[in-house]
């Protein structure tokens, strides 16, 4: 029975490694064809971000961020005042 387990282990590990090695290979091959698209997508995203910044339009979360920072500064000042 233990011999059967050893055989199964050998088969199983070979299959798992071959499957994932082939997967790595397929990812690398698809990367060769598709990575250009990813680079373009990233460039477009960055360009859109730059345009938004140049226009000076606040981002969706900027208002919240300003409110949070102001609240933190106020709390800090209050604490300083308390300490004297």
């Amino acid at each position, binding site marked *: *029975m*233990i011999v*059967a*387990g*050893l055989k*199964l*282990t050998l*088969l*199983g*590990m070979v*299959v*798992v*490694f*071959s*499957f*994932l*090695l*082939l*997967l*790595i290979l*397929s*990812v*690398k091959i*698809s*990367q060769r064809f*598709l*990575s250009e*698209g*990813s*680079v*373009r*997508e*990233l460039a477009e995203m960055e360009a859109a971000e730059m345009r938004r910044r140049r226009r000076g339009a606040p981002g969706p979360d900027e208002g919240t961020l300003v409110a949070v920072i102001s609240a933190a500064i106020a709390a800090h000042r209050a604490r300083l005042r308390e300490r004297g």
Partner: protein
Amino acid sequence: MPRRKRFAGKTLGVAILLLIMALPVAASTETSDAELAPMGAMIGEFAKTTGVFGFLCPASGHWTDGIGGLLMIAVALLMLYLAIGKQFEPLLLVPMGFGCLLANIPLAGMTDPGGIVYYIYEIGIKTGVFPLLVFMGVGAMTDFGPMIANPKTALLGAAAQFGIFTTLIGALVLSELVPGIDFDLFDAASIGIIGGADGPTAIFLTSQLSPDLLGAIAVAAYSYMALVPIIQPPIMRALTNPEERKIRMTQLRYVGKVEKIVFPIVVLGLCMLLLPSASPLIGFFMFGNLMRECGVVERLSKTTQNALINIVTIFLGLGVGSRLSASSFLNLETLGILLLGVIAFSIGTASGVIMAKLMNRFSSDPINPLIGSAGVSAVPMAARVSQKLGIESDPENMLLMFAMGPNVAGVIGSAVAAGVLLTLKNLLV
């Protein structure tokens, strides 16, 4: 005269109607009168239908049906305590603990044909439907980006599956050495899959190969998954030195939408060609992932990630809990399974770390060996453990995203391992 005739006709009609209504009443009164026993005997008979009697004097006369049931209720309460008090995998342990409670109510027969929990088990778990639906939800929640960006880390996910197979051998050795433990090859395969650290895969494989062990294996798998932050760190520290733990990895590249859409189809294509037996698991996993990445079925993707997986988890937990009966749980084999489960997790963790160290020797890009342990699936807990240990050595070294690569590769790896084990039935001569 015509008026009197009409009256007579009406009276006759009412009389016939009353007669028809009275007939069954008379008949039933006769039978219930015959069945009623004297008061003392009635109370005695009623007492026999109470739970107290069921626990103390089980119908079969075997202790496992009486006191064993009480012990199982204690186990169910312990599971509920761990889930609610300690927050150990509460999403599964609460329904599972409660399923165990329901299954052990004496005389209610909820796990017998006709009982609700019986049907939940038969329909959802015995058929393998529930674990596969959960797996689809997991697919819809998984981002393969970190793995696609650094594909070689997928090898760590392969190495960590070593835990599955060494535990399989361990189960067979235990079966040979310890009297009272008798695991066949199917049982050993089901126990080994605990090392895959993937609940749905473990439940699916066990329901197909050895359904009798389902309760114990599911409890072991989910308990140890909750204990990943306790089991893994000592092994990771023992196998690495402080310099290795400080290794910084190169920034991951951006992975575009098209690459992410193509990925699930490529994986399923490989599965189709190499290992069709794994296609239920990998197929549902990749279907969920495609819904997430394609961007045109957001409603379906959100449902799969939230409502559907939640509904199925409730019934999966109840169904698995219903298999926790005294006769199948309170024995030496369960102790063996719990022991082997922790060994499976430990070996999986160790082999992932060792593989990372080995790859570091040959690879030009540095790999922090701490991410090797994330190969044992348990998404995203194992990756968080890598991150935590990385920060301990170097507070600015963020390993989480790097660890997600082997982590999601581990899910594919354990599904492939399960696919190999599912072919066992064909491999036996």
